[in-house]
């Protein structure tokens, strides 16, 4: 019962954010801001990926993952279209949310592989350790992406040395936050509940299928 209420609440929040993104798209069309029309359009499509996965492939992502994806996209698009990146620490907030999303995704993947796949076994602290490092490494890849974009297209994705160090620091904090939350959730059994549907679906559709193919 409680699980269903959380799920329904989560779905409502996710759809409100998606509607807000559509409003942002309309604003960018009205302002003839080509770059952000493309950005908002792409963001809306990506935010519907969890819904598409569920409808077409019967893969149910945890509702928190859905909300995190939509929130990260909404903050980025909103920041660009409404000029919120000019607000102090807004960029830090978007970096934190995106990194937290990556950390959450990494934790979910490692946890499911640990639970359902024979090829990987890790205790919760080793998982937490790896989640922190993976999040930092993904932050570095993101910075490479911005750096190379700036070099090739002469853009201003990276705002400077101090800003990049701050971004990397925020990425690390997000990774540590998720690692702590993840360990606490595993201890309480709530992480298992959260990833149960997705884990069983991946087990059925990918892991067991792969094993059957190997045995044939």
């Amino acid at each position, binding site marked *: 019962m409680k699980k269903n209420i959380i799920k329904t609440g989560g779905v409502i929040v996710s759809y409100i954010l998606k509607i807000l993104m559509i409003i942002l798209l309309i604003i960018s069309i009205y302002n003839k801001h080509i770059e952000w029309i493309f950005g908002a359009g792409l963001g809306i499509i990506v935010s519907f990926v969890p819904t598409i996965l569920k409808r077409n492939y019967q893969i149910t992502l945890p509702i928190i993952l859905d909300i995190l994806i939509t929130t990260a996209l909404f903050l980025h698009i909103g920041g660009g279209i409404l000029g919120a990146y000019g607000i102090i620490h807004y960029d830090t907030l978007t970096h934190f949310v995106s990194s937290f999303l990556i950390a959450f995704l990494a934790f979910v993947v490692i946890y499911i592989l640990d639970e359902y796949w024979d090829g990987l*076994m890790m205790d919760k602290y080793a998982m937490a350790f790896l989640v922190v490092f993976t999040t930092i490494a993904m932050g570095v890849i993101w910075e490479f992406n911005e*750096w190379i974009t700036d070099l090739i297209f002469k853009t201003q994705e990276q705002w400077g040395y101090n800003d990049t160090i701050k971004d990397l620091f925020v990425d690390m904090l997000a990774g540590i936050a998720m690692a702590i939350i993840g360990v606490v959730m595993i201890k309480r059994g709530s992480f298992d509940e959260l990833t149960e549907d997705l884990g069983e679906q991946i087990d059925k559709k990918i892991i067991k299928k792969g094993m059957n193919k190997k045995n044939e």
Partner: protein
Amino acid sequence: MEKKYWYLKSIIIILIFLMIFLLIFSINKEDFLWSFFTLIMIIISLIPTLIRHKIKIKIPYLFDIFISLAFIFHMGNGLLDISTNFSIYNKFTHFFSAVVVAFIFLNVIFIFNEYYRGIAVNKYKIMFDVIVITMAFGVVWEFMEWTSDFLFNLNAQPSLDDTMGDLFADTLGGIFIALIGYFLINRGVLKRFSKDFKKHFNNLVEKD
């Protein structure tokens, strides 16, 4: 340890003496911050020897050589300012240090994977772990450079391009050792390297 490794031991002794010489040089130069760093580096370089003697674990001598060399290269940067004349030297030191960190973690992960009940992963996962850990250590190193710059105005970090270049060199170091690690695992070299940990591991990690 075995007499047949006398040449490796000699290299280690030469490297430690070189570090002591650089310590004296830094004191003579009145660069006391680098005297402090050099002293710390000498102590860290002696840790494998201490482990060998105190805990009786036969850590390969290659570790000592790699660690000492990485520190000496960094001293060349900070103390002797080689990178002022040869900018590529800074990237080389980063690459080499990343290789050393990656090599140490490759061994640590492999040992945990082999002897610790809580972790069992395949070699591709080990390769992935080595790369992300090395990249993360590169970031921690940049934090340290930023902090030392902030506190002591060392100007270790002149620009964003330099930082990104450092991180790129670190990533390459991680990828390089991950690829080498694949062959070392396949050919059983890491197993031979780490066999001495087997009998100690339960005492060190799984005390229960």
